[in-house]
């Protein structure tokens, strides 16, 4: 682990990070994994820091994962969600930013429906901003936990063949994974109905598979995206049944794979649509471990953005929470 790796104020996406920075986050996540296994899951690393979890879109998973990460590092946290909060309702993002600034908080974790919203906020407040998903742009901590999980099972990322399957067009998870995996030297492909593959995706350095059988034959890892049910209503696919038939990940399909395939899914799953239950609950799946790793990766990000030294993460772990 290099002591020279430093971080900026914010984490808005993986596109702006270097391979070294990404590796450092993954390395720092390792010691933090163990904290979650203790009976008293708390270290005083962020004691006295205030963190606001600002969620404009409902997302129980990501918010809860961040909240655990913050609490296990002893930060004081406040959750603000668009549903049922006057701070956010009817107020534009500039005013929300100014209000947060006036409250002298240290960090903001934001989920927002518009691409670029995290950057927008980061440019306007002195606090650290962590993007917990902005529109169809990036969801960096999700990609980091995906990479940590791949590394856990396949030792390294470099040289691995990862195919992201499903609605690439609307997916921030796909974009962050593409940026992160390519930086760490993986080969990346996408597969899905052509209506859900953005034009120009090849320019990012990924290959496109039209059929899932080709993707399975090629890949070491499949990252299976959730298919939003709205996509059918909007006419991108004719029916969920048909989607499952042509793109769903089933045991029958995986059994034909030439080598062992790791199955990731960012959740929540639509069982029987993009993924069959036998796969989700079967031996290929590392989906629950992704959830566990999510907390560790988010602890690492919070720690590093708060100015924590990468090489001191191991020591920080040993301090006992009070």
């Amino acid at each position, binding site marked *: 682990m290099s002591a020279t790796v430093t971080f900026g104020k914010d984490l808005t996406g993986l596109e702006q990070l270097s391979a070294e920075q990404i590796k450092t986050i993954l390395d720092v996540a390792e010691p933090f994994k163990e904290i979650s296994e203790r009976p008293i899951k708390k270290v005083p690393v962020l004691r006295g820091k205030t963190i606001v979890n600002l969620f404009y879109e409902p997302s129980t998973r990501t918010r809860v994962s961040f909240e655990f990460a913050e609490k296990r590092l002893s930060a004081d946290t406040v959750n603000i969600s668009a549903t049922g909060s006057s701070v956010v309702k009817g107020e534009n993002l*500039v005013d929300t930013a100014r209000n947060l600034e006036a409250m002298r908080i240290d960090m903001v974790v934001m989920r*927002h429906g518009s*691409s670029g919203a995290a*950057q927008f906020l980061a440019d306007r407040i002195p606090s650290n901003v962590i993007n917990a998903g902005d*529109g169809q*742009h990036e969801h960096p901590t999700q990609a980091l936990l995906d990479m940590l999980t791949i590394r856990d099972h396949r030792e390294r990322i470099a040289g691995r063949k990862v195919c992201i399957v499903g609605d690439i067009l609307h997916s921030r998870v796909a974009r962050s994974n593409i940026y992160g995996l390519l930086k760490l030297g993986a080969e990346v492909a996408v597969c899905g109905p052509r209506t859900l593959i953005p034009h120009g995706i090849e320019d990012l350095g990924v290959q496109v598979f039209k059929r899932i059988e080709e993707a399975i034959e090629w890949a070491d890892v499949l990252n299976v995206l959730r298919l939003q049910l709205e996509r059918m209503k909007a006419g991108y696919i004719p029916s969920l049944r048909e989607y499952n038939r042509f793109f769903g990940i089933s045991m029958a399909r995986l059994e034909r794979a030439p080598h062992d395939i790791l199955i990731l899914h960012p959740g929540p799953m639509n069982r029987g649509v993009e993924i069959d239950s036998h796969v989700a609950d079967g031996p290929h799946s590392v989906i629950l471990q992704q959830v566990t790793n999510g907390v560790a990766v988010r602890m690492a990000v919070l720690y590093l953005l708060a100015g924590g030294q990468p090489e001191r993460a191991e020591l920080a772990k040993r301090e006992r929470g009070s």
Partner: protein
Amino acid sequence: MSRPILLKGGRVIDPSQQLDAVRDLLIVDGRVAGASDRPPDGTAVIDCAGLVVAPGLVDLHVHLREPGDEHKETIASGARAAAAGGFTSVCAMPNTRPPIDDPAAVGFVRAEGERAGFARVYPVGAVSVQLAGEEMTEIGELVAAGAIAVSDDGRPVWDSGLLRRTLEYIQTFEIPYFSHSEDLGLSAGGVMNEGPVSTSLGLRGIPAAAEDAAVARDCAIAELTGGHLHILHVSTRGAVRLIRAARERGVRVTAEVTPHHLALTDEAVRGYRTEAKMNPPLRSAADVQAVRDGLVEDVIDCIATDHAPHHYEDKEREFDDAPFGVIGLETALAVCIREMVTSGRMTLPELIDRMSCRPARIAGLAAGTLSEGSAADVMICDPEERWVCEPEKFLSLSRNTPFAGQELLGRVALTLVGGRPVFDRGGRVAAAAAEKS
């Protein structure tokens, strides 16, 4: 009546007469005097050595926001910004609130323009009542009240039957139809050009095909009817190709391009810069090359700004939610000099032709010439002056320009409308008048 003015020793460029020579230009009674006329007593003499004296610029495409959004721009502030940019005639689009879809509204725009007394303001009437794309407006009445063209700009005339009838009906009144050519099915939900940049930013794209498909349809209907189709803000390689082909087979189609589509690609959107958000969007480098070539090769007739003011508050927000549009009146000449003249693609007289004489002809305006007896609408500029684009100094009420902070070349010094100074950066006219008295 304003006092006589002698513009002395400038480089007079008037493409309408193939004129490009250092000479004096005398203005008496608001009109251009004959070359042999002598300045009467009391003439204000303005030294124009080193400056270009040209017909005032003509902009076929501005949004002045009045009535309805006077916090963004008014007819007066827009006409004043136009004068500062060297424009002496501007055509105001009808998508105001309420829209300019009846004769009284046309009369209002005209009267406000005259009352303001800066650039001349020519109303463009709506094609359809309430811009709803259903029922045709009383186009004859609009023209009688002063409209010089019809358009539903901001939206295409989506019903091909209505478009056909419009392109037929306008022929009685000899006005063009200004077309915002966009296939709404292809552009739906898009906020920027579709391509690698939109993919990496995660923003929904508007494919070039949305413009191409609409231009193809519009040209086919123009061919069917013989009506004058003028295509606004051409931005794609495909549109240039389609317009070229239509003209080659004799279709009555003209076209314009904006300074921003000549100057910028969709890379300008990176960082989610809402001041680079407009419709049609900034396109790829290949498209920019095609519209530049199209202008040089005369497939695109003229340059128009699509000046679209927005309040800073409306632009200071998430990219998806920010409105489309950029302003352009006060930067158009300099941006076009940089992109087209300094780069060697065109001569300055050719550029002035495309910003003055040609647009005047498309809209049938008595403008774009300094021939003897014509109204003295004159733009005087220093094509060598370097300046930095500082939006806070604009006369427009809005600041939404993608050129903020850029160094520009070529600056308007003085603008006359009917021989009357409507913009005078250095106070030259006042100084000359003081000297005489």
